[in-house]
């Protein structure tokens, strides 16, 4: 029991450290909050007339539709930044010192993911508040907002695990940073920014099967239509699938890191 308590304290301490690190360095905050907010404003203002297209699902406004996409973009960039920060810790030897301490090695990785999750939560909250300020309604009310935030936080951990696995496997921040453009490729090939039925092929077909589309729709449902469960359940399943995959990769990468040092 005391071992579990120790590990939980380690996770909390490392999580708090990673959040502080992000807030102290503007170059880490920019991709998580500044760029997605800027793009949300520009895309809403620039493509807002899209709601008049035949086939566009009924929404209160394009901003309301886009909130889930902005949250998704922000949490993916937070996950990527978490991976970069872990790789920097490996490069600087900080992780080696933690591995030498009498604590679980998994707690070290979980600590980083806890910090990433906190950033995901903060970004979801930020975009919902921005949406409300600029007139978007949250159809599901407070419970709907809480569901959207919970899904976003869980998705940040699941996707953050992928960044952590690359960091642990390579130990090089530049390689994790190289995944940055990939974030946008995956996002554009999902329903983050537009309804699937109105996307242009081949993006439409890829978006149909992209697990991120399920996560986005799950976050979008409580905002746009209220809580009816279908998309939220699909999102939970997609997040569990991504989490299982990233857990497997992270565990293997951690074993590799402990072997190579």
């Amino acid at each position, binding site marked *: 029991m005391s071992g579990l308590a120790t590990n939980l304290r380690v996770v909390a301490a490392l999580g708090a450290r990673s959040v502080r690190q992000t807030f102290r360095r503007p170059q880490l905050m920019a991709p998580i909050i500044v760029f997605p907010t800027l793009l949300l404003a520009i895309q*809403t203002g*620039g493509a807002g*007339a899209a709601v008049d297209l035949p086939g566009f699902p009924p929404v209160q406004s394009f901003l309301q539709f886009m909130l889930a996409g902005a949250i998704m973009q922000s949490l993916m960039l937070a996950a990527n930044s978490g991976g970069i920060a872990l790789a920097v810790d490996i490069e600087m030897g900080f992780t080696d010192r933690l591995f030498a301490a009498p604590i679980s090695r998994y707690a070290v990785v979980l600590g980083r993911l806890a910090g990433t999750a906190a950033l995901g939560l903060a970004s979801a909250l930020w975009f919902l508040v921005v949406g409300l300020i600029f007139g978007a309604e949250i159809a599901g009310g407070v419970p709907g907002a809480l569901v959207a935030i919970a899904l976003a936080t869980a998705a940040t951990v699941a996707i953050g695990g992928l960044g952590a696995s690359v960091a642990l496997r390579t130990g090089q921040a530049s390689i994790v940073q190289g995944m940055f453009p990939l974030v946008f490729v995956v996002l*554009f090939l999902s329903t983050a*920014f537009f309804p699937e039925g109105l996307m242009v092929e081949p993006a*439409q077909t890829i978006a149909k099967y992209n697990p991120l589309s399920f996560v986005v729709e799950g976050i979008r449902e409580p905002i746009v239509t209220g809580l009816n469960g279908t998309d939220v359940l699909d999102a939970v399943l997609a997040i569990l699938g991504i989490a299982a995959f990233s857990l497997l990769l992270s565990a293997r990468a951690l074993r590799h890191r402990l072997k190579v040092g």
Partner: protein
Amino acid sequence: MRRQDIGTILALVDRSKNELLRVPGAAIPGVLAPTIFFLGLNGVFGSLTQLTGFTTDSYASFLVPVSVLQGAGFTGAATGVNLARDIEQGWLDRLLVSPAPRWVLLSGMVLAASLRAFIPASAVLLVGFGIGAHWPGLDGLVLTYAMVAVTAAVAACYASALALRYKSQSAAPLMQAGMLALILMTTAYAPMELLQGWLQDIARLNPMTLVVDAVRQGFIGTVTWEETWPAIVALAGMLATVGALSLRGMRRTAV
């Protein structure tokens, strides 16, 4: 301009070229970012052309000018980041104690950015033509490259002014976000009448809208002098303003 000033400018351009040849990976983000945005936005917002008010049925043609200018913006912003790195590492100090005038040092960096901007522009154009963007004609193509070069110079001066002000690579997001906002808060995604009210107001005031529209004319129609000269004036005005700011920063930078 003295012969040695030209030599210094060319040496700084050469240094930038060496960086490209020795660290080819350094150019990849500048090429990838606008290309991914171009392909992604085309796939996502492609059906916007069905809206009444669009003057073309090819969203790739509508979007390609924005993406080439975005590439120029990123390349120019990278000049500021590199200058901040040079300041942090003490390299700029060594340049400042040389007999070269400050404006010559700045010109070398800015000219290098203008030339480097042709790389992402060419990549985006190739991809654009590959997915069906219209051929802008020779005049449209020349106009595109000319506007790309000057836009990169504007971005380089703006980013350099920030680098000289903050003397840290931490200012990089400010350099990139500033250019991103300048280029996208225009008729980037849709014609003026289809923009939301607040963005329409900003786009009307934003001089970069004139540049986007000028580059776009060849891709969705024909190049005319009436739509070209306002862009030239806008770019000249922006370059004069941010150029003066960055030169002021250079002159105020003490060794």
